[in-house]
């Protein structure tokens, strides 16, 4: 950090300046009528609405519902997807047998499952979780299997020549060497999960921050609608940053912190 402080600050300053200028341009454009007031609130009124949302218990409750379904869905997808991925990666016959099916199921646009789960579970958190698990499991499964298959043969031969037990070679060799891929899979899944959590609320009227936004929109409340979009964006940034942190911490041992094939 101490070696190149000036350049780092310069970059951050220019980034912050751009955001300030963009916000100012928004304010100016909507005040001068370049952005029509009927569809575009001013920046100041949007952020005013945002601040007042932050002061409401209703908002935090909705956010809590969204994030709860996100966490539960992602956790289930990981708990099911990682072991299954290890199995598929290890057993070549299973890998080849399931490839076409997984390929097809994972390319079904995940939002199109919403009408089905909506009918089966109603507009509930349960429905959201099922949807998220469905959408999030594929990247985790596929990446894990890929990571296992990419394990260096030399490592496995070493394990065998030292007669490591099967469980230990999974624990000490397969999982660590597939870890970069698994984490990339979970990271992709986290973003998809958030998209699906919001989608199920916007499209399926499940309770949560997305539904609040639709309510604001259908009530014609411009500024709160935009404020919700900004907030959802901030949640997205937070998820993104959190997973970056997580992966750099978990993979600190990894020489290149390499990315995966995705």
């Amino acid at each position: 950090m101490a070696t190149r402080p000036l350049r780092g600050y310069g970059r951050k300053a220019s980034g912050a300046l751009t955001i300030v200028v963009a916000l100012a341009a928004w304010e100016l454009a909507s005040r001068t009528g370049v952005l029509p007031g009927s569809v575009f609130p001013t920046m100041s009124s949007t952020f005013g609405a945002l601040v007042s949302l932050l002061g409401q218990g209703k908002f935090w409750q909705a956010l809590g519902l969204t994030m709860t379904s996100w966490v539960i869905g992602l956790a289930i997808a990981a708990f099911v997807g990682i072991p299954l991925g290890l199995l598929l990666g290890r057993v070549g016959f299973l890998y080849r047998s399931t490839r076409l099916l997984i390929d097809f199921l994972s390319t079904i646009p995940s939002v199109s499952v919403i009408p089905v789960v909506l009918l089966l579970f109603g507009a509930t958190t349960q429905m959201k979780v099922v949807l998220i698990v469905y959408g999030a499991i594929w990247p985790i499964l596929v990446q894990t299997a890929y990571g296992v298959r990419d394990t260096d043969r030399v490592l496995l031969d070493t394990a065998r020549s030292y007669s490591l037990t099967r469980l230990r070679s999974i624990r000490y060799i397969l999982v660590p060497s597939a870890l970069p891929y698994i984490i990339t899979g979970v990271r992709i899944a986290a973003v998809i999960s958030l998209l699906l959590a919001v989608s199920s609320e916007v499209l399926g009227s499940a309770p949560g921050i997305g539904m609040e936004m639709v309510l604001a929109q259908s009530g014609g409340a411009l500024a709160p609608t935009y404020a919700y979009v900004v907030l959802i964006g901030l949640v997205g940034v937070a998820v993104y940053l959190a997973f970056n942190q997580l992966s750099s911490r978990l993979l600190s041992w990894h020489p290149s912190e390499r990315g995966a094939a995705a």
Partner: protein
Amino acid sequence: MKTTLGKSTALLTEVWLPIVALAAWWILSNKSTSLYFPPLSRIFSKVGEVVTTRFASDILPSLQNLGAGLCISVIIGVACGLLLGLVPPLYSAFQPLLEFMRAIPGVALLPIALFLFGIGSDMKVAIIVFGAFWPVLMNTIDGIRGIDVLIKDVSRSYSIKPWDHLTRIVLPAASPQIIAGIRISVSLGVILIVASEYIASTEGIGYIQLLSARQYQMDVMWAALLLLGVLGYLSNVLFRVVEHRLLRWHRGLRGTDLGGQK
């Protein structure tokens, strides 16, 4: 003789599970009276019906909007990516803003898109562009920033003309990443076209699916879901073919690199 046997075994390994799954669904649902899970035979006949009677009215508009949205995303994404990738100060200035914008799930913008564009094709195309543009943009920037310095030295020392530098060096060098970005965009695009057809629409495959779900015509709903799955799958396959042709050099390069190192 032996190779054909080997090939057919390999093919069999790939396809037995999908066939068994389909057969199981067919048999198990054959006498089904469940509202939610109608016989597969009926779903198939509905697929035929939808394809023949509603191709021009619903399937074609979906494909057109998807195609238009993706084309615009790719063109804008690559153009902006070139600019930001080739001018580093510009990139560091815009990076935080872009990271925020792309963290907004496309679906969260549906309410705003309704304010801005109302109901219709414009809204759907706009939603696709906003959601699918980011992977192309970010990957183009990454691809360009990752170009080997030596390649740039070669270009400079041989005084390659700017246009040739751009079209014959920069774009091809970044193409593996640009194409990986487009690939993500295609699957996001399919999700967003369906989502936009759910929320406010009078046409499209997503619209058929949602409408039939509301009217409890489950066979039509499943048929539409299958069609969306096929659409997602086919767009993926089509893309892989294009990728395969365009990046032949990249695979060859990596193949020899690996061979050289191990």
